[in-house]
């Protein structure tokens, strides 16, 4: 369901599922939580996700808030077209940074205002 890598002290979480919806969102969240710590810097790579619904979106937002509240940071990268459509619909970009690829995302992590 999820692969985990670490680069530049950033945890890269890459779902291996193609959809994140009401059916699997809860399970996904449990798996993600296992890799989160206080102050974690997390990059969520959405490359594989073809379908995302409001529940899945809720999970991403939950991760975001959890990290932000503990001094951590969440970034997203490589959303598919439909996911991008959804992000636009709910104006997610204004809350969570979304990047085209991992390099761009990691570079953004590298220059944090408060490291």
């Amino acid at each position, binding site marked *: 369901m999820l692969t985990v890598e670490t680069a530049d002290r950033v945890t890269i979480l890459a779902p291996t599922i193609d959809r994140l*919806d009401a059916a699997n969102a809860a399970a996904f969240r449990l798996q993600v939580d296992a890799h989160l710590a206080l102050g974690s810097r997390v990059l969520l790579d959405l490359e594989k996700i073809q*379908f995302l619904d409001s*529940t899945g*979106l809720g999970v991403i937002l939950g991760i975001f808030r959890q990290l932000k509240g503990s001094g951590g940071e969440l970034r997203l990268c490589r959303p598919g077209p439909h996911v991008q*459509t959804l992000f636009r*619909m709910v104006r997610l970009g204004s*809350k969570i940074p979304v990047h085209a690829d991992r390099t761009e995302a990691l570079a953004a992590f590298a220059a944090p205002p408060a490291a």
Partner: protein
Amino acid sequence: MLGDSFPFPSPRDDSEPVTSPPETDPVAADLLWQVDATGVVRGVQVAARWQGRLPQAAWVGRHWAEIVGEVTPAPGEKTPVFPVRRLALVVDPGPEAGGAADGLTEGPALRLSAPDWPGTGSAAGAEAGDRRWFELIPVPLPEGGGVLVGRDVTETRTLRLAQERRRWFDELIAAVSAAAGGQDPASLDAAVDLLLERVGAFLGAMEGALYQPGGTETAYERVRTWPAGAAGGWQLPETVAADDFPWLAPILREGRPARAFPLPATLAASGPGTAGPAGPVPVLSRGGGAPPTPSVAGWLLVPLVAGPTASGFLAFLVADLSATPVGDLDSLRILGDLLAGALERRQLEAYRAQSQERLNGILNSLEDAVWAIDPQRSTLLFVNPVAERILGRSMVELLANPGLWFEVAHPDDRPLVARWREEVEEAGQAEFQYRILRPDGERRWLFVRLWMAFSVSGAPDRIDGIATDITTRVEAEERLRAQQNLLTNLIENLQSGILVTDGQRRLKHLNRQFSRLFRASEGAACPPATAGGAAAAPVAIPATIPAASQDEGPTSGPETPSAAGQPAPVAGHEAGSEAGPGAEPPADLDWGSLVAQRLAFGQDEFLAHLEELMGARRPEIGRELELRGGQTLEQDFIPLFVDDVFQGHVWQFRDITPRKEAARALQAARQKEVEIAGKIQQTLLIGQPPEGLRGAQVASMTIPSGGVDGDFYDFLLHSPTCFDLVIGDVMGKGIPAALIGAAAKSAFLRALARLARDGATPGPGSPATAGRVEPAPSGGKAAAGTDAAGSAAAPPGPGVPAPAALTNLAHRYLTRQLIHLQRFLTLCFARFDLEARRLTFVDAGHTKALHFHPATGRCDWLAADNSPLGFDEDEVYAEGEAALQEGDILVFYSDGLTEAANPAGDLFETERLEQAIRDLQGLPPDHLLEALHQRVVDFTGSRTFDDDLTVVVVRIAQETPAGSGSSCAEAEFAADLGNLAPLREFIQVTHDRAAREILDPDRLAALILAASEGAANIVLHGLAGRAEARLRIQVWTFEDRLEVWLLYDGPEFTPPVVSEPDLTQGREGGLGLYIIREAVDEVVYDRLDARTARLALIKFAATPGRAKEP
């Protein structure tokens, strides 16, 4: 004895001594009658000086008694009676007198006087002839008969008469004086009686009486009468009214005896027997006795004068007034005066005795003590017994010490009264209010007034004093003061601001709360008073106004600078500082301006209104005032009247700010409630026109009136070619009407479900399932689709109950409750069978639907004669039918349309509706509705209406050609989130199988996203906890759009109002719904039938203006 008759010597009356008449000298006879034994005069001789002056020849041959006017003896009686008689003869005055020469004339040439000596006769010169008195002395002769010797005794008699009268009167006066002088009232009465008797006898009166003033001013009553037991005969009246006798008043006024009061002529004419009632005056009213001669009889009055007026009079009824000698009248007057004096003295003494008694009575019954002091000797001249009671001391003590009144003063008050003597002597009078201590220890309040009484010479004569025990009054005043204090305290502690003005609009009182409400320092915005006083000066009010009653000490009112009419600031009283007593509001405080300057607006209007109120003296309750700073006050303005006398005004100000705020909150809540109710109406009562119909276009419109109305309508879709329209209107408005509308809708759904279950052969599903929907999937791959594009027009199917059956069952469900609630509703149930081109309807008293046939231009009104639901439990609803043709337009509406009124009161009416449809027939239904709405707006001149405006337009269209219209694919899933992915797949596949691409990938993805969200929502909420529940999906493919219907057996989904979620705040509750709204062009939540709820998601192809960008 005076008045006695002389005895008549008679040979046959030996008991009566025959006295020798005096001066009977025959030689000196002037007249001789020779009378025979029968008494007839046989010869007459007269002295020379009478020759020719007496009717000698006339006497001869007549009986002597006839001549002298006495009885006529019976013929043959030989009784020569020769009484001594005195005759008054009227003789010829003689040659020396120069009178008439014929001497004794006719008539009573010889006339007898009255028999009584003193009262008869006079040498009245008033007579025609000389009246002379002759004394006839009988000298009987032995052979019978005799000689009557007559002598002229006139002179002798007159002299003797005068002497006798003098003596008589003197005796009478002495007797009356003696009688009147006695102290015994009875002796005065005796004197009166004596007087009446003697004078009456003297006058030869028939009756005499004393009259004294009676009850009225001008009437006199007979109080004593002589003779006492007079019965019969002529009588004096009981009362004499001055009005009846015009001559009476002058006589009494002049005090002269008078006698010239002849009897009334009427009396004389009618005689005594009948005189009384006949005459105008009830005088001499009783019959019997000899009638007085009218010409000479009358009454003689003797006024009793002792002072300026007569106090009564004596009256004598006299047979011959002419016989009363004038000289006697003076004597009578003396007698009258004497009597009057005696009477008056008696009255005066009676009055004195009475008044002294009364005065004593008054003084003794007074509540006040009265006394008099001799200032020279300092002795008490008089004191009434009340003094003992007031002071609690004996009369002896009082008499011994005239100053005791002040010596018993309470020690505290003694200085007040110590100089009482000096004060009254200096000022002539003095007043003291002080307390005394009684021997019994009781304390009393006295009010004492002293004044100096002076004698005629101007020297101090007496010090008079009056003392009043005012203890009760003082105590009452103290109680009153206590009550006033209580009242003042009460007013002070009221939560309302109170201001009291008097009748001259001057300030009398204001309480603490008033000061708080209007204290000037709070109004920081008020400019401070400047020297010029251009702006309204702020008015400071003392925070506390003391009780009004301040008897002790001078009232220390605050200085009230009068700055040219400016409201005077009260010096020394900062608002908020609880000022002590002594701070009174200035009476000239301009309280009107004071209140006005605190108002948020409308100061001038307030003052003008105030003037009007005060002028009219009418109360005004509950006027609201808004103050600067947001406070709201409620003002009562009440004129005060005590016993209808205007006393002033009371103002009351209540701070109702909290109440107003609560009211505003309540109002907002109500508004919210109305909004919610409106939303409920929109969702509960108003259905969505069915989409995907083949052979008809439907549009509906509801313009809410702003409240909640009872209009409702809904559609029941049985198949793409068969649907029902229920449109109705509940009598009344508001939430009750809306609830009844909802109940009516529900009743129809219940009826539908019930009938479908019981009566009809179940088809492949419920009446509303797609089993009887004939979709035409172009690809034919739909999971449950049935190719029906070309199938023959089918009736709605055996599972769909007839409209009449439905209506009657709903009627059964509803009507009893409606009757109970005293409500009713009109309704039209219309079933459109588009394949059979047939309309079946039930009309329950609703507005008649319009059926317009463009082909012929004809216009029908669909109506049956059933009554509204709720009228009659026994009503049986029947169906009507109409054939439908392509192009037909059917308009269903509420009476809000036809009864929309313009300002003139004209209604829109069905005529205008028909004309509008004729004019607008070429438009598609939705545009037609818009144009119709515009017409109503133009007609009424308003965009808002009193009633909801509900219109449903159905246009019968050409049946959608197979393949070019819709097709439907259906699938069914278990209600499990795990089936979301297959569901999405089904939509994708259905779209992909279409002959061509209807939606571009982005749009399709958005539709799939919305469908997935919707399905998740249904599974989680709509079908929550129901493991066996199924979720059906129908994908309808149209040329211009794709529709996804999610059908499930459960409660209709009522979406909340969805706003853009705030992603940062963790409020993602509405996120799914928000995504649905954003992702598709139309969302329909409704109910296909009683059981099946539907969520329809519609996504158009990129048609400009209809679909939004995904």
